[in-house]
């Protein structure tokens, strides 16, 4: 997307991609509860298992991925939908994967936490901080081949307390690879607040320990993320090494669907929803001269694409059970 002709088109893309991601998850919500009522049972319905929604975190994904090309690598987390959509993962195949269908990205083997789209170099994982090492590897491959591809690892603020975080940052810095580490700070690792489990207020300060630039992005705003991420990614492309970015964002839903969220202070979610970054961004674009009709049209197209992906995913066939044995080895 960095080849987009102007910042104006990037901003329109960021807005419509946030809308697309939010709408994608809006369709997941009722589908997830199908078959799980009146007694909630995670195993039931068309979308079994854990479901981690990214509502509220969309600015992180679009502000970073607006600068990325298909050849750049992204590793994401257990909360991957917004990043996957922003990276250009095939929407139809992604929806089908989440429904466990044969036409899914992995034929139903991976599910929502294990989305892989090699076409755009996207992968995600359910293990905290697991994506950092692979991002260093992808970045090293780019460097060794003399390419200008970068690798971006997304992680939550809780992952910055994993050993893998510190090892990967050090390695990336020592090898001076074109990697960017993006922390989405949504304040909680499941129930545990950042302030209760992290020694520093801002994880971006930890960049100093690995001799790389560290940026803290306040405000959960796509334009600010875009600007800071643009600098870090450009720096990486120039061969000047890795950066760490921490983005202040928020999780508008529970850790997973069905989370009672008793650990949240009263009124927190209402406050966060009142500051929802997507309508706020629309207002900014209108103030900056975008036409309402232009935004409406882009939104409608985004929603139509998601509707089509969900309709196709629901209609798609399940894989043959015996397919479970395929792809264990190459």
């Amino acid at each position: 997307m960095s080849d987009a002709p102007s910042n104006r088109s990037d901003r329109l893309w960021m807005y419509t991609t946030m809308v697309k991601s939010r709408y994608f998850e809006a369709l997941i919500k009722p589908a997830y509860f199908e078959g799980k009522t009146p007694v909630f049972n995670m195993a039931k319905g068309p979308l079994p298992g854990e479901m981690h929604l990214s509502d509220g975190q969309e600015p992180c994904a679009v502000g970073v991925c607006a600068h990325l090309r298909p050849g750049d690598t992204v590793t994401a987390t257990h909360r991957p939908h917004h990043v996957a959509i922003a990276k250009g993962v095939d929407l139809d195949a992604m929806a089908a994967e989440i429904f466990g269908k044969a036409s899914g990205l992995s034929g139903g083997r991976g599910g929502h936490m294990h989305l892989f789209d090699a076409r755009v170099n996207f992968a995600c994982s359910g293990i905290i901080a697991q994506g950092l090492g692979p991002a260093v590897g992808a970045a090293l491959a780019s460097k060794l081949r003399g390419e200008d591809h970068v690798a971006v690892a997304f992680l939550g603020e809780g992952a910055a307390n994993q050993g893998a975080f510190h090892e990967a940052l050090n390695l990336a810095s020592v090898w001076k690879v074109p990697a960017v580490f993006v922390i989405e700070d949504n304040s909680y690792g499941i129930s545990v607040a950042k302030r209760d489990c992290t020694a520093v207020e801002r994880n971006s300060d930890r960049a100093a320990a690995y001799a790389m630039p560290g940026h803290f992005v306040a405000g959960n705003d796509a334009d600010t993320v875009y600007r800071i991420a643009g600098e870090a990614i450009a720096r990486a492309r120039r061969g000047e090494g890795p950066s760490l970015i921490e983005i202040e964002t928020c999780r508008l839903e529970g850790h997973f669907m069905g989370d009672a969220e008793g650990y949240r202070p009263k009124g927190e979610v209402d406050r966060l929803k009142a500051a929802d970054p997507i309508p706020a961004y629309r207002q900014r674009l209108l103030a900056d001269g975008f036409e309402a009709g232009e935004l409406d049209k882009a939104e409608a197209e985004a929603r139509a694409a998601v509707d089509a992906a969900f309709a196709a995913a629901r209609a798609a066939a399940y894989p043959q059970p015996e397919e479970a044995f395929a792809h264990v080895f190459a």
Partner: protein
Amino acid sequence: MSSPDAPTVIAPARRLTIARAIAEAIGQEMERDATVLVMGEDIAKLGGVFGTTTGLLDKFGPERVRDTPISETAFIGAATGLAAAGMRPIVELMFVDFFGVCMDAIYNLAAKQCYFSGGQVTCPMVLMTSVGGGYGDAGQHSQTLYATFGHLPGLKVVIPSNAHDAKGLMLAAIRDPNPVVFMYHKALQGMGWLGTVQRSITDVPDADYLVPLDKAKVVREGKDLTLVGLGLSVHQALDAAERLSGEGVSAEVIDLVSIAPLDRQAVRASVRKTGRLLAIDDDYLSYGVGAEILASVCEAGIALRSAPQRIAFPDIPVPFTPVMEHFVLPNADKIVAAVRHMMEPSAND
């Protein structure tokens, strides 16, 4: 305060889930022994994702009930240090699948501390962890990995199949001077948001009692063949045995309770009686619990009436989509089918 004339007061039977039984055991031991503390991700304010520490924070406070960062290497390593220093830590590894980030602390520290020190330093800690799939959580949140832990010298490994055993095993595990890996199966845990095998919810005494960490149990007697299971597969074996009884087959069911140490004598005694053996577990097949059970019987030279069999999870990662996952998971139907085959006269050939 009873007098000889007073009527005997019998406490009403309390039926608890495994989750409640675990939390009760930890709480009772924390009251009895000031060196016991519990640490892990989301175990304080949330009470554990799988309910193992419900109510403990309110009762014992944040010094002894500690939410940790997502730093398993550090806090499980810290547990070995606490144990060496005379404390009795209980740590929770939320999903056994997460062992990859912290296995060094488990198998190179906890498991070897006593041995390397020639017995000077012990490691009385409990590592409790959830296991098992069947609910569409895919391959990084659905494994059991019994054999991975059972394979490592220096670790005791127990898996309760019901709430009564869970409480007694947890009390025994905390008091044991060695590291005990306490695996609880999500399909038996009794969490509101996960289905639960009702048979795992049992009467649980209020009182303090121990269930030995090294003894298997015969949970159903029979004479034609021996079904050996642990955790969830005990229930699948019991379901299968019930169906088989309608076909005139009398199946004995053994609940291993522990895989390290493994109560080989209990298995051998049963198979000597029945002459047939089928082991069932939901860990990966190769080099697994079933293999160890079959080897224990074969090595003893017990005469068998049909070739010993095992049912386990095939050697593939756990797939997400339910049509695949339920195709490969063990279940009572597969046990019944395997037993029917074993009972055919031609099975002796």
